[in-house]
């Protein structure tokens, strides 16, 4: 089974995407499944490092937190853009040491950081594990560091183990 379908989640996701793009019918289900299984083999040929999820229950919590944070920072950045030139906004770079090492977990963290207006992922040093961020409104550095390390990184460590 694992030889035939090395990435079951990927295959299920691809079949779902195929059915969303077309209309549900038996033919499309079969065709989509065939394509997804072949794509799974192609993925297996690339031999990526397989992510192992420890705690599924923490994923919806993290997604909810991130969606809310993104909405909040949308409002904050929109307000700062409108008041540009008047307020005493200071932007700058910020170094955050990370404990995360897993590539997939880092990718998820990159999506979170980039999708949030107000923080931009600039550089990650794989040797030292230090992340260089650019923060739009750098009022307190410790607060931003705390946000990254305790709000997101701790939960990602919990999920990816």
């Amino acid at each position, binding site marked *: 089974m694992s030889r035939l379908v090395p990435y079951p989640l990927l295959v299920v996701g691809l079949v779902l*995407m195929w059915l*969303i*793009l077309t209309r549900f019918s038996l033919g499309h289900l079969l065709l989509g499944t065939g394509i997804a299984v072949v794509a799974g083999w192609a993925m297996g040929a690339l031999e990526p490092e397989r992510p192992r999820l420890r705690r599924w229950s923490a994923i919806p919590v993290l997604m909810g937190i991130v969606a809310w944070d*993104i*909405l909040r920072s*949308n409002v904050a*950045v*929109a307000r700062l*853009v*409108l008041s*540009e*030139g008047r307020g005493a906004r200071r*932007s700058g*770079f910020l*170094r955050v040491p990370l404990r995360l090492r897993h590539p997939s977990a880092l*990718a998820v963290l*990159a*999506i979170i*950081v*980039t*999708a*949030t*207006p*107000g*923080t*931009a*992922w*600039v*550089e990650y*040093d794989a040797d*030292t594990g*230090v992340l*260089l961020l*650019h923060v*739009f409104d750098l009022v307190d550095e410790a607060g931003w560091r705390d946000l990254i390390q305790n709000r997101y990184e701790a939960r990602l460590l919990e999920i990816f183990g």
Partner: protein
Amino acid sequence: MSHLDAVPLWAAIPAALLILLGSGLTLLGALGLARLRSFYDRLHAPALATSWGTLSLVLASVILFSTLEQRPVVHDLLIGFFVMVTTPVTMMLLGRAALHRDRAERSAAVPPASLAEPEEPSRR
């Protein structure tokens, strides 16, 4: 009379609000892109368009077409998913490209390559 009259009022009001929110956020993002002074500040502005700007327009589209066609039409969510996955790649690459160019010019506005690593004077 347009096809939009077929949408019931309970779906039309949230959809209209989402449309206004999404386009307004995108406009603010573009405004930030035009007004902010440094490149790294401007790097934040399009995130308004690609996060809730796209998401709310996609949700509005899902609501509208699902009520119009009387079946769940969710393929627009793929656009949201696609934008969510691709934006980090482009923004990270752009940030790195800018950092690389600024460092090559020895600009004082950007931090050095690494705190631990000494400068390499032998390369020039």
